[in-house]
């Protein structure tokens, strides 16, 4: 743990509040996705549904280190990034339901959450497909002298794509303000990392492109935040792109359900013992910063928020079919 979090002082109210925010964010993501799983089983949500359960510390920690004007480019497992970024839960849930009030007007679904006002440049369902986009955002920022950092999330699977290589090379070559966040959950869908990478140390590989790279415990939100904060500071200081390998684990299936034939049960159980939410709760409790009552209230609050979002989504209007071909071209999209 870095200085900020290890130098815990019990009487530091601001720090306590910040940690509570991290807990709230992670718990919100967890409960939101559990609700999504249930709604999917009840056929309220359709399509692909990739859940982030187990990986909450990554989005929560990295995004906590970003400023309000920074950009986020994400993957198809991006509910956590959207919620951590502050996209309204109502808008995300409505998107799951394919409603007009969804953050992509029901045209994106689970894999394509977008919110310009929160700098969320999309969930991208092509593995590594968002990486060149992030490079381009950063290029524009540099050419226009903007102080923005673009956080680009992708998984270990993306590291096998040509776009991973091309994007890291280009960002490093042009010294662009990109924070590459590799969510290494050890499996590209169902293929273990050792079965698809000749060199499994992804941070080490990234470093060969001439950018700063580090591996971080992705189950420890405080460690993630510290590492991200250092990286963002370095980028803003003109240090060029940075790379974080965030070692984490997905507790659930790749997409909603699978038979998990490709993972060892003992491995899953071992990772579950390192649940990032439990880990933070333990730290807070040890520091005397979290009461049972506060936890119960937090859970109740989140549950109520989710219930409201579901009710609102169910009642929300659908995009009219007459508007089917809207948003294909700007001129025909209207305002």
């Amino acid at each position, binding site marked *: 743990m870095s200085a900020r979090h290890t130098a815990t002082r019990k009487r530091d109210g601001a720090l306590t509040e910040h940690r509570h925010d991290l807990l709230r964010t992670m718990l919100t993501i967890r409960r939101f996705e559990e609700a999504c799983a249930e709604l999917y089983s009840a056929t309220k949500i359709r399509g692909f549904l990739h859940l982030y359960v187990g990986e909450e510390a990554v989005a929560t920690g990295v995004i906590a280190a970003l400023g309000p004007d920074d950009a986020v480019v994400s993957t198809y497992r991006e509910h956590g990034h959207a919620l951590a970024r502050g996209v309204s839960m109502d808008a995300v849930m409505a998107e799951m339901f394919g409603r007009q009030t969804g953050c992509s007007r029901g045209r994106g679904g689970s894999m394509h959450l977008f919110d310009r006002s929160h700098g969320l440049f999309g969930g991208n369902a092509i593995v590594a497909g968002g990486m060149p986009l992030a490079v381009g955002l950063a290029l524009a920022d540099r050419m226009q002298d903007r102080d923005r950092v673009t956080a680009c999330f992708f998984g270990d699977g993306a590291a096998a794509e040509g776009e991973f290589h091309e994007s890291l090379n280009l960002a490093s070559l042009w010294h662009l303000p990109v924070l590459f966040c590799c969510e290494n959950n050890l499996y590209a869908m169902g293929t273990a990392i050792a079965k698809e990478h000749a060199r499994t140390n992804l941070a080490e590989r990234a470093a060969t492109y001439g950018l700063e790279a580090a591996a971080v415990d992705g189950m420890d939100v405080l460690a993630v935040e510290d590492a991200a904060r250092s990286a963002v500071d370095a980028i803003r200081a003109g240090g060029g792109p940075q790379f974080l390998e965030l070692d984490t684990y997905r507790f659930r299936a790749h997409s909603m*359900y699978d038979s998990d034939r490709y993972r060892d049960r003992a491995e899953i159980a071992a990772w579950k013992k390192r649940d990032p939410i439990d880990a933070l709760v333990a730290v807070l409790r040890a520091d005397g910063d979290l009461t049972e009552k506060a936890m119960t209230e937090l859970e109740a609050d989140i549950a109520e928020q989710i219930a409201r979002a579901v009710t609102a989504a169910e009642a929300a209007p659908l995009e009219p079919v007459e508007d089917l071909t809207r948003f294909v071209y700007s001129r025909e999209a209207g305002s």
Partner: protein
Amino acid sequence: MATFTMPSLGADMEEGTLLEWLVKPGDTVRKGDIVAVVDTAKAAVEVETFVDGVVQELLVAPGTTVPVGQALATFGETATTAATTPTAAPVAAPTGPRPAPPPVHSPLVRRQAERLGVDLTHVVGTGRAGVVTRRDVTRAAEAIATRPARPEPSAPGARIRVAPYARRLAEELGVDLSALAPPPGGEPIRAKDVRAAAAKTTVAGTTAAETAHTPRPDAMRGVIANLMARSKREVPHYYLATTIDLTRALDWLHERNRDLPVSDRLVPAALMLKATALAAQARPALNGFWIDGSFRPADQVHLGIAISLRGGGLVAPALHDAANLALTDLMAQMRDLVTRARGGRLRGSEISDPTLTVTNLGEQGVELVHGVIYPPQVALVGFGRIVERPWAVDGLIGVRSVTTATLSGDHRATDGFTGARFLADIEQRLQQPEEL
């Protein structure tokens, strides 16, 4: 109480097979616990409960396939409820409305069905409890065999091939496509063909286009008017006539018809047509078309038979290859042609193919026809009424049955000499009806 239902485990999943229960009645479950294993056809998947509770009843036995959303189990709210709940054994199928169990068929029935090509799922069983018997299968097979065969799609007639724009243009210009000679080589009629026809049918300063859009009988009148006007304007007609003694032919016909059913009997017109066709085949100068300044003989004799229509108007469809038709066939085809002409069901080729037209107004009582040639044909043969006349044969006066045959010839294509030989040929052939 909560109901645990078959979850949807994928966007394409509509049903699942319960493979295994991981809980039993009385067990306490917490939200997130794995309670069963379901086969989705793609994989065996462990499924979780989204509620806390106590398992009350398992409604579906392992091995059962049920649709998404169907109840699999009921969960109670508290452990105390569960304690008093009898641990009911899973039943074979869920309660409430459910799909009927798959019917069981005996091996004999299955084998017989396979042999006879019968789909057992569509056979209603008459045996005990609705069981399908071998007799049911046999009956089903018979039903298949006697089912009326699907009617064959009607053979595509020899449709005139016309380009879409040419068709539209013909309508606009009032050009009768059926009257256009088909372009050579099987090419479709194009706009240029229609325009050429329209240019030719311009009458007395009034273009055909101006007469278009009139009701159908008038349109036909217009077409006839244009065509006949064109004929009289362009074709220098010559006319020949000869009176033919039909006594022998009619006697022969009478003998032949006597022993035949009415439907097979011949009429005198059949003899005249056949004689004309044979004569035309022998003298091809009169059988063909005058196109672009020269005569183009036809390969076969397609006799145009002038048929008056009940609503007025006239058509002259082709009796194809009439010279090579046996009399009975010729007769049958002629009847068919008249019927279809009056029913408005002529084929395109019948309209467009005639190489020489025959008009027989004898039925109407006239004795002599001076016909107008149908361009681009070069001749028209007419037969008048068959009448009894005092007639000298071998120096003796007798009463004979005669008709007057006429020929209208296109003087550009033939001279009167050729025409006269042709008429004489017809006459000679009618004296030897057995040769026809």
